[in-house]
């Protein structure tokens, strides 16, 4: 096995050298890594923005910045986190890298389109950067770009909105690529119910991307059109209706929430069975719940707008549908826990992170029900409770799934192993910081502190101080985690092709994989999570 050359040494297309072997590559693995470095860069930037925001809020009044900068900063934090981190993180990095391998093939269906998506992504990011330093400065509208403010304000909304448009294009084309790959490139012997759950979740995500992204594209285009030509489609003075903007916006942006969480759930569905040495509980239920979330999640957008003015009938309807989405999500949580029941659990950093995911995601989901119910929502709408809720889902959920995926697939992607002890310390610190950071926010929200406010009443000071303290812990934890991963490049402890005892196809190929992924024809198992062989090996080793 050691004689196979990894994809690092084999450019694709052949003949490219140096930096061009990366910038012009068609190899899905190289593209996944290129996404990774770009996305990590954005993540760190947005995290620092968040840290500055919380520092500002730690004490009353002006602490380190003025209110205008504060508004721009939370917009920047939101835009980067949503469009440049959470949405692309798992699909673009790990999806690109592992979807073809899990399907038993050598690349995605449209490799050149894949490269093009990467360039769109980089271009979108570049536009966002330019909009920071040009014109009247970065927008202070919040990432939602609500009209009429976004149309009337002088800041550089148009450019930022175009950046989001292009990033949307990029994620949509990636989704298109995945769906086609899923159907046309899958190993001929692999039936639908033999596909690993991570790939299934990416498939469901890809459909939501194609379904929903064009709606945000047109909405953002309309914002630009309104700014340039003042048509008045959302302007009540000219006969328009600003609420319609909110409808169009959330018609995409709520499904986008599922674009963000579904791949994360897929990651967890991979990690839990591997370290429980036990077949996943309810494989089909998880597959169907992914598709169920994709469908039901597209029909709940107006629960963001209970206080915007809607008929009681639609409020009732959207509230009911919102509760329905909780069911498939809960199916997954129960399946993961049932998988661990009576399994022979081996604790590793990826499993620890996955467990933290389950815990934090459950809190996020349950607080979501509070918001989905109309009565309590009107009480806590637009407060810190909402902020804490979606951070529990987006960060406690997708963020931790992303960290878990990094730790799970790191040895496969780079062929090296990291230090476990530091990874544990980093993960635990991140989780503790997380709770310190967001639990006070839940309480602040219940007490009535609105979101996006620059200043607050004296009674909120303790909560805000604690949240700020948590933010620092959180950042230190993440820093330790990342530094530990990066240090592995120095220590270069080689990883075997299957360090965890996984059963899906990516663990049958060398670490890092060769350019065409498979050395020999992939053997498709009857069921992707059959651990009988792995368990037998472990038993044999013990004797």
């Amino acid at each position, binding site marked *: 096995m050691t004689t196979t050359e990894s994809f690092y040494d084999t450019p694709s297309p052949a003949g490219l050298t140096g930096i061009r072997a990366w910038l012009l590559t068609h190899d899905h693995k190289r593209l996944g890594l290129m996404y990774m470095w770009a996305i990590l860069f954005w993540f760190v930037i947005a995290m620092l923005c968040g840290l500055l925001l919380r520092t500002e809020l730690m004490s009353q009044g002006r602490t380190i910045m003025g209110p205008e900068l504060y508004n721009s900063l939370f917009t920047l934090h939101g835009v980067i986190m949503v469009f440049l981190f959470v949405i692309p993180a798992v699909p673009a990095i790990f999806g690109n890298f592992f979807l073809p391998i899990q399907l038993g093939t*050598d690349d995605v*269906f*449209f490799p050149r*389109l894949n490269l093009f998506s990467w360039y769109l992504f980089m271009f979108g990011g570049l536009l966002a950067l330019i909009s920071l330093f040009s014109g009247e400065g970065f927008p202070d509208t919040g990432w939602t770009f609500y009209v009429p403010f976004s149309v009337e304000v002088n800041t550089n909304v148009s450019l930022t909105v175009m950046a989001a448009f292009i990033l949307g294009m990029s994620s*949509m084309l990636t989704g*298109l*690529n995945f*769906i*086609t790959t899923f*159907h*046309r*490139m899958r190993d001929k012997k692999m039936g639908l119910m033999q596909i690993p759950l991570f790939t299934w979740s990416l498939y469901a995500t890809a459909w939501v991307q*194609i*379904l*929903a*992204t*064009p*709606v945000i*594209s*047109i*909405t953002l*285009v*309309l914002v630009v*059109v309104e700014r340039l*030509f*003042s*048509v*008045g*489609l959302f302007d009540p*003075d*000219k*006969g*328009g*209706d600003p609420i*319609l903007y909110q*409808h*169009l916006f959330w*018609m995409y942006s709520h499904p986008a929430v599922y674009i963000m969480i579904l791949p994360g759930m897929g990651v967890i569905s991979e990690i839990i069975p591997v370290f429980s040495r036990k077949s996943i509980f309810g494989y089909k239920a998880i597959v169907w719940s992914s598709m169920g979330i994709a469908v039901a999640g597209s029909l709940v957008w107006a629960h963001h707008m209970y206080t915007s003015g809607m008929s009681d009938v639609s409020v009732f309807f959207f509230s009911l549908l919102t509760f329905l989405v909780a069911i498939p999500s809960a199916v997954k949580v129960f399946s993961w826990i049932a998988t661990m029941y009576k399994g022979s659990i081996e604790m590793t950093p990826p499993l620890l992170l996955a467990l933290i995911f389950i815990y934090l995601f459950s809190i996020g989901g349950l607080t979501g029900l509070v918001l989905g119910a109309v009565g309590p929502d009107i009480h806590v709408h637009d407060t810190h409770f909402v902020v804490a809720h979606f951070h529990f889902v987006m960060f406690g959920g997708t963020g931790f799934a992303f960290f878990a995926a990094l730790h799970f697939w790191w040895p496969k992607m780079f062929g090296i192993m990291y230090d476990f002890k530091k990874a544990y310390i980093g993960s635990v610190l991140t989780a503790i910081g997380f709770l310190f950071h967001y639990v006070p926010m839940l309480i602040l929200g219940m007490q009535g502190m609105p979101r996006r406010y620059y200043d607050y009443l004296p009674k909120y000071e303790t909560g805000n101080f604690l949240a700020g303290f948590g933010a620092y812990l959180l950042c230190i934890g993440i820093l330790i985690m990342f530094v530990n991963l990066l240090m592995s490049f120095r220590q270069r402890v080689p990883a075997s092709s299957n360090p965890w005892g996984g059963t899906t196809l990516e663990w049958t190929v060398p670490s890092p994989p060769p350019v*065409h992924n498979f050395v020999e024809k992939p053997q498709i198992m009857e069921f992707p999570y059959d651990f009988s062989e792995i368990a037998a090996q472990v038993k044999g080793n013990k004797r």
Partner: protein
Amino acid sequence: MNRPIDKTGIKIGMWLFLYSEIILFGGLFVLYAVYFYTYPEFFAEGGRELDRKIGAVNTVVLLISSFTVAASITAIQRKAKKQAVGFLIFSILCGVIFLVNKYFEWSAKFHHDIYPNSETLVSGEPGLNIFFGLYYVITGLHGLHVIAGMTLLSISLVLVLAGRINESKYSMLENSGLYWHLVDLIWIFVFPLFYLVL
């Protein structure tokens, strides 16, 4: 790895893309539906002010061009390169005719001070402003799609002339044709919604 070209796969990709385009316009049609419900009488009044003749001519032009694009694909499959080239040039010309008509239509409206944020619309009835606002946004976006479609057809034309598109390899032409049909399809909805409204 060298594997045979998977034409079905390429087409699946294209159809997914077309689907996303339809959703893109779908957002605008949602706006149309809501505002039509709010201002039915002004939409009717606005519709009467549009030039139905030009609209009808444009519809016919696009429908014919859709036929000729399809014919060019059949021609390529039958190895009739010259025919295919002829059909393609004709289709592109149809696109040009469509855009020229559109130009005259828009400039006539501009002449009557009917354009986004114009004095007449802003101080007039809000319903009419919304109608013409949507008219400009939707036909404008559609016009951009016509230009994109013509670009694709032109690229296909060049590739046909160069022999890169031939009877065994014509996915590019087929996909350009699909895109052109989409442009046509959207127009088939736009035409009655604006020109024939009550």
